[in-house]
């Protein structure tokens, strides 16, 4: 069983420290959620774990591999994919080209094509629009493309930065359901979400961040029992 662990991570932008030593762990096949108010450092923490942002202190580990020593383009080769906010598709590349970029880290071109063919069948809206520029897709389709692209490299962990942001309520449900399906294949999910109401039910474990520090960790049931946490961070949901 793989574990993705962050060990007292300190990071920020420029000289501004934003995350002040946060530790967390995500397990394969489970959904781990990070909640917290705007600007509390959730996305920053996620980027630091994925190597997209330098770590100032502490380290991220995937099992025995220290990710924080690796350049960002090597992290994907360790089996960890970050889906940035908004999905991060390339709008001026076609659907197929976006998917091929998802397999860029894999040397075997034929393997990539085979995986794309297998994947695209599960995403009918993409299969019909292979040559469409990603920028011409709807927000929901872009979210699906982003998810499918993340899967081409067959990652062990996917890090998602607010996958539900900007989606219609129906698309939020579909996206979260697809994410849940992935855990059944053994993929570990670590995601930052604002949409607590929808994300809480699918979470196996959750963390609450505020002002760059961890304020809570536990299972969704623990949160529901904690009136104070519910009132302060969950808006009484």
């Amino acid at each position, binding site marked *: 069983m793989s574990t993705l662990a962050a060990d007292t991570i300190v990071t920020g932008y420029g000289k501004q420290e934003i995350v002040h030593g946060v530790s967390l762990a995500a397990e394969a096949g489970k959904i781990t959620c990070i909640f917290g108010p705007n600007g509390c450092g959730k996305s920053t923490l996620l980027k630091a774990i994925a190597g997209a942002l330098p770590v100032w202190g502490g380290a991220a580990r995937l099992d025995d591999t220290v990710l924080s020593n690796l350049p960002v*383009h*090597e992290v994907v080769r360790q089996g960890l994919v970050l889906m940035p906010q908004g999905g991060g598709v390339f709008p001026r590349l076609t659907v197929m080209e976006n998917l091929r970029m998802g397999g860029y880290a894999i040397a075997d071109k034929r393997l990539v094509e085979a995986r794309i063919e297998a994947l695209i069948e599960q995403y009918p809206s993409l299969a019909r629009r292979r040559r469409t520029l990603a920028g011409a897709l709807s927000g929901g389709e872009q979210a699906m493309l982003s998810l499918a692209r993340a899967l081409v490299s067959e990652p062990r962990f996917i890090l998602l930065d607010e996958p539900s942001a900007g989606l219609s309520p129906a698309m939020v449900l579909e996206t979260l359901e697809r994410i849940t399906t992935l855990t059944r294949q053994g993929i570990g999910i670590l995601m930052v979400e604002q949409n607590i109401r929808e994300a809480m039910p699918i979470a196996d474990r959750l963390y609450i961040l505020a002002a760059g520090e961890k304020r809570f960790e536990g299972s969704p049931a623990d949160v529901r029992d904690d009136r104070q946490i519910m009132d302060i961070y969950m808006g009484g949901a």
Partner: protein
Amino acid sequence: MDLFLQTLLNGLLIGGVIATFTIAFQLTFGVLHVIDFAVGGWVVLGGYLGYYVTALLGLDGFAAIPLAFVLFGALGYLIGPVLYNVRNSRTARPELMALALTFGLFTLLRGGMLTAWGFNTRNVTTFLSGESLAVGPVIVPLIRVAAAVFAAAIAGGLFLFLYRTRYGLAIRATAENCHNAALMGVNIRRLSANVYGLYAGITAMAGVLMGAIYSVNPEVGLRYTLFAFFVAVLAGLGSVGGAVAAALMLGVIEAFVSTYVGSSYSLLAIFATLFVVLLVSPKGILRRGL
């Protein structure tokens, strides 16, 4: 009427050669986010290489084309990481620092060439120099046709590379969003060095062709830098497709002004055009990107 056709054709043929290095210039901007002032320097270096290949080695000027690509491509590959480091440094205004660096590189190239070779105008001679072909009333200098054909081949090769290979795909993705491309596993630093090398090589190849059509001296570099800026602004910075159209337009404007008004007015006409286009369409004529 004959003169009109003649001028139009000349302009299009020259525009084709200009297109090759402006495409590469746009690609470099897309990937490195640096406006390379040194572009004219690479053109002139290519021209001089063409001259020395004919004068010292006794070879045909066209033989200098692959040599220019290898030599200046390698040089660009070495300079690329420096440019990348400056552009991505934590200084206050890295984009201005990078611009200053390329301006310095341009000055260095120009000064170095003046010192080494003096203010002598050189020609690249090829087996087609002085030959021409009469097509009806229009007389076509064969060297221009050959240069345009070479230019088309280079541009075609570049497009095939960009649109048919995995690495080309990675370059296009990086030009769109380098952070997301890095997340997909692209080594942005190495890619930047490769792109700058590719660009310097292509620009020097275009320089050999330019040297064969006109002539080179260390001072003409600025003219080509201005051409590249004109095309980049007109097409929209970073737009590769627009660069071809804008370069052809540039060639035609230059040819017509030189023929009907006087060549000393060509830069004036070119920048007047740019001024008008920007007034009407501030994003350039074809804001499309790669």
